[in-house]
């Protein structure tokens, strides 16, 4: 019962509430899961999950929350998909011009080649 309640609270907090500015999807949960349990899910799975959510949200006309595209770009960079990563960082900038300084740095780094 308490577990159910806890889940209900999370559901209420994380998605179903009305009057939200943005679609947040799994962005925050995934961040927690992957940091807390490294290796519990692979970056490609995380990316696919985020992408699917973003697609559906966009179809429903929702605004994508700050950071989600940038985070997808991060995963794409990890997966050595530099072109996709750059596109994602550019999309973040497009939605939020405030992101420009940091996104530009990331894009520049990718263009300079692998730094691992």
């Amino acid at each position, binding site marked *: 019962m308490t577990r159910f309640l806890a*889940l209900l*609270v999370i559901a209420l907090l994380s998605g179903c509430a009305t009057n939200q500015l943005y679609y947040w999807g799994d962005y925050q949960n995934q961040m927690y899961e992957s940091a807390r349990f490294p290796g519990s899910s692979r970056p490609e799975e995380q990316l696919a999950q985020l992408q699917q959510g973003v697609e559906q949200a966009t179809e429903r006309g929702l605004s994508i929350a700050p*950071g989600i595209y*940038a985070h997808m770009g991060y995963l794409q960079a990890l997966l050595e998909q530099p072109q996709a990563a750059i596109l994602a960082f550019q999309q973040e900038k497009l939605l939020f011009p405030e992101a420009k300084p*940091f996104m530009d740095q990331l894009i520049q780094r990718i263009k300079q080649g692998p730094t691992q």
Partner: protein
Amino acid sequence: MKLWLTMLITLSLTGCATAPKTDVSPFVALKPRSILVLPPLNDSPEVEAPLVYLSTISKPFGELGYYVLPVALTEQFLRENGAEEPYDMHQISHAKLRDIFGADLALYVRIQNYGQRFLVLNSVTEFRAEARLVHLASGKEIWSGTAFNSESSNATRSGNILEMFLGAALTQIADTHSGRIRGVVSVANYNMLSSRQYGIPPGPYYPVEEETSTETAEVNNSN
């Protein structure tokens, strides 16, 4: 009459002596748009506390109309550039943070309490953190607040002692899945930021139409 007046004045003065409201003037003057969340310092013994914090802080800022830089990415970026621990990250100069991230504000957090206390038939999940927002271009702290929330497992509904124990045990199981504490931290962050009195004013992406500047002035001088 004089005594009465003195008493009234004393009353009204002490009545106002609660914690000061947020001074919104720096927000009005500086018009901050973006927030860099630095990984929090952690005074609690729980290593997962900062992770939970970082995974619950974007949304309350975002829904208030601010741009929040992607937290996992900014943390990783700082690590790769030589700041291993949150403590190191908190030592980076404001100017440098501004230079790297282009954020208007940085959020500095210290987690003071995180986790659960087990009572006999019950457990209490608690979270407390102090937060400060610093304007990076000027280095000025423009806001500070405390996030606090606690939740009791509340297993005492029925009088059945076995059920009470089971309730506490079940709550602890749920807690191991972290759902509960994440809920507690989410609510704490949300309440801290969106409090009318002590929170922060809405940011640039917040819909303008909801302009309700109803000052609840305390005019209790009817006697």
